[in-house]
């Protein structure tokens, strides 16, 4: 209780009033009996009127469950909470409620479980909640708009070559330990500035991070990283850790989508990260097998594709026409009078591959569902590329139209330059006698890779991305040693920020790259490139001089 000065007579008063209002009323409900229970599922006899995904309660044990299987003479239920307390012969009651989560703004900054209960020890979540069903139909075609507004991740390699738009579903795929989660946390951190007043970074984006089947320590780490970078205030973390019952791991992504939809349907932008869907698929496989549904490929049930497709379909850019938006299909009653158009839900699902095998069942499914993928590779990671994005295998199918014009101008040749470099790189390993144009391409490629490198938790604003990429593709970096590129980038951007803030602000506001801005970039880049190139020559001379002295 928040204040320590509650007098006993106040409590008595409340109790007396509650007692006065209490009516003796006979309870009427439908009950069934547990036939068998175990491993997070229970089979019930009776409850012949139960609906799919309805909540069932076990009053003696204080456990709730969700109806997943409706058969001729029994009902299959997945259990949330203390799974082992339910046993054969226990009573189960229908609640008449569909499995749902209560959502409100006070959830931001909190860590919750998939049913909306706080896990961070910061007390109950205050305020009235909008109760939204876990399973909900995605908005139809007429309630959607094409993806056009960018969602800036702050990661140079992504924003320039694999742009993500608001309302898009972009898969992050890769082996373990390739930095998948880092891509998500960086993206969430970069949304911080959309919440700061007086910046032109677009409408605020509310973030949901759904952790499925992960270690609690990893989730605590993510929470800490977000807190340290000031990104927790606009983020909800849903945690269904590896230690929680499988049914919770299965519903966690749906709960995440629910919270995202709350923001989406009230006219705001949201970002939901599912980390990761392969673990959810495994949880669902376990439940399906226990419910005796027939196994298919890799023992996954037949509807595993539908599991992911119906979840990711809920990512959408909602039409800005208020009247049309208000008629959206499948609107829960609780949202009926709160609907506003123009909101969006961007989904960043994660899939973990085994030894780079993207042709396994679940990866191919999710690749085909999403609007593109960001492919992270172990080899690149080991050779020092951060984030370790394999540009050749990564695509964004709808993000192109969401890129700002300035970025389109500078980044259009980036992808081609890079893939040519990768091709030549393989050849160049065989011999050293290369013609000057090949040498030149290799040279340029090396520097492009270097400027796309980026540290964790240091998102780069889009206008600065434009500035540095402009310098790189126009050859201003060609004479600078690769080792100095990082310093150059830092100093170059610093100088632009200090002396030419108006140019950067112009790009931010108009989203276009003017000739004047190009001139400024060229001038500063050329100026600084000279300094760095000279330094290099001097160093070489020094080395030569030293050698001369010793001989």
């Amino acid at each position, binding site marked *: *209780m*928040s204040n320590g000065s*509650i007098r006993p007579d*106040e*409590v008595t*008063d*409340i*109790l007396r009033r*509650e*007692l006065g209002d*209490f009516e*003796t*009323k*006979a*309870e*009427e*409900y*439908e*009950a*069934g009996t547990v036939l068998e229970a175990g491993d997070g599922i229970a089979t019930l006899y*009776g*409850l*012949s*009127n139960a609906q799919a995904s309805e909540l069932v309660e076990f009053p003696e044990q204080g456990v709730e469950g969700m109806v997943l299987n409706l058969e*001729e*003479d029994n009902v299959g239920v997945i259990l949330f909470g203390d799974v082992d307390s339910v046993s054969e012969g226990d009573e189960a*009651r229908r609640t008449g409620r569909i499995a749902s989560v209560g959502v409100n703004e006070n959830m931001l900054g909190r860590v919750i479980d998939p049913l909306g209960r706080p896990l961070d020890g910061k007390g109950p979540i*205050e305020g009235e909640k909008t109760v939204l069903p876990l399973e909900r139909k995605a908005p139809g075609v007429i309630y959607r708009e094409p993806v056009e507004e960018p969602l800036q991740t702050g990661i140079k390699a992504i924003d320039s070559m694999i742009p993500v738009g608001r309302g898009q579903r972009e898969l992050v795929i890769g082996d373990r330990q390739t930095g998948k989660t880092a891509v998500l946390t960086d993206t969430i951190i970069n949304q911080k500035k959309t919440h700061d007043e007086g910046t032109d970074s677009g409408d605020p984006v509310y973030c949901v991070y759904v952790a499925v089947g992960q270690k609690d320590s990893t989730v605590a780490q993510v929470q800490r990283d977000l807190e340290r970078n000031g990104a927790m205030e606009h983020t909800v973390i849903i945690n269904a850790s590896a230690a929680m019952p499988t049914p919770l791991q299965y519903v966690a992504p749906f709960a995440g989508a629910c919270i995202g939809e709350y923001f989406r349907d009230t006219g705001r932008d949201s970002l939901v990260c599912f980390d990761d869907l392969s673990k959810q698929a495994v949880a669902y496989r376990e439940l399906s097998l226990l419910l005796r549904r027939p196994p298919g490929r890799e023992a996954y049930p037949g509807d595993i594709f539908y599991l992911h497709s119906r979840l990711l379909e809920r990512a959408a850019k909602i039409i800005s026409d208020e009247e049309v938006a208000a008629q959206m299909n499948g609107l829960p009653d609780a949202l009926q009078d709160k609907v506003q158009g123009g909101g969006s839900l961007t989904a960043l699902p994660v899939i973990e591959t085994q030894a780079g095998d993207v042709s396994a069942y679940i990866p191919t499914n999710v690749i085909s569902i999403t609007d593109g993928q960001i492919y992270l590779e172990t080899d690149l990671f080991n050779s020092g590329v951060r984030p370790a994005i394999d540009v050749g295998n990564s695509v964004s199918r709808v993000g192109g139209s969401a890129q700002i014009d300035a970025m389109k101008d500078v980044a259009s040749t980036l992808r081609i330059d890079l893939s040519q470099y990768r091709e030549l790189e393989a050849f160049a390993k065989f011999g050293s006698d290369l013609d000057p144009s090949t040498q030149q391409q290799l040279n340029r490629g090396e520097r492009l890779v270097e400027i796309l490198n980026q540290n964790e938790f240091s998102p780069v604003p889009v206008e600065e991305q434009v500035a540095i990429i402009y310098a790189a593709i126009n050859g201003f970096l060609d004479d600078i040693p690769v080792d100095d590129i990082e310093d150059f980038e830092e100093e170059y951007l610093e100088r632009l920020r200090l002396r030419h803030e108006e140019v950067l602000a112009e790009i931010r506001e108009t989203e276009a790259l003017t000739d004047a801005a190009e001139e400024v970039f060229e001038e500063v880049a050329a100026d600084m490139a000279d300094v760095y190139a000279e330094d290099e020559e001097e160093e070489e001379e020094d080395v030569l001089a030293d050698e001369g002295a010793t001989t």
Partner: protein
Amino acid sequence: MSQRTVTRRYAAALYEEADANGVLEAVDEDVLMLLESLDGNRPLARVFESPVIPQDKKDSIVRELLDGRVEDLTVRFLRLLIQKDRETMTEEILNQYRSLRDEQRGIVDAEVTVARSLTDEDQSALVEALEEKTGKKIRLHLHEDPGLIGGLVVRIGDRVFDASVRSQLGALHDRLRDATLSEDALDEVA
């Protein structure tokens, strides 16, 4: 095939055959008698359940025991079960037959739990009230549970009607507990 599907099919077959031969009433009585004997007579139940007793032995036992005492159709039915290796399910099949007949005649089972025994008048009043509410004939099964403290709990099929003092006290308990936790209520008082 699930056990329930099997029992339902055999029960339906028995019903249809009895209906066609016009011996429904007699078969009803036979089924009731058989169920009672199976319930009260362990050795008889074991004859049907045991996998050790050979088929022809079971067959002759059924014939000797029941020929002439029950309807011919009933004997033939039991022998069919033995022949088809389904005699272990005899009890379930007969129960299924009974609930099938109940459904047709509009009879429902009402499990009523009370705190202390009811007088005959109360019982008939209860049956009357339940029959009015459900629109069906009630077959009353009374149980006693002093834990209810007072009132009664009626269960018909899946539906439970709980008017016991125990659950009311439970509801009051929850209500008082939740009231003290709610901050809004505290603010109001302050």
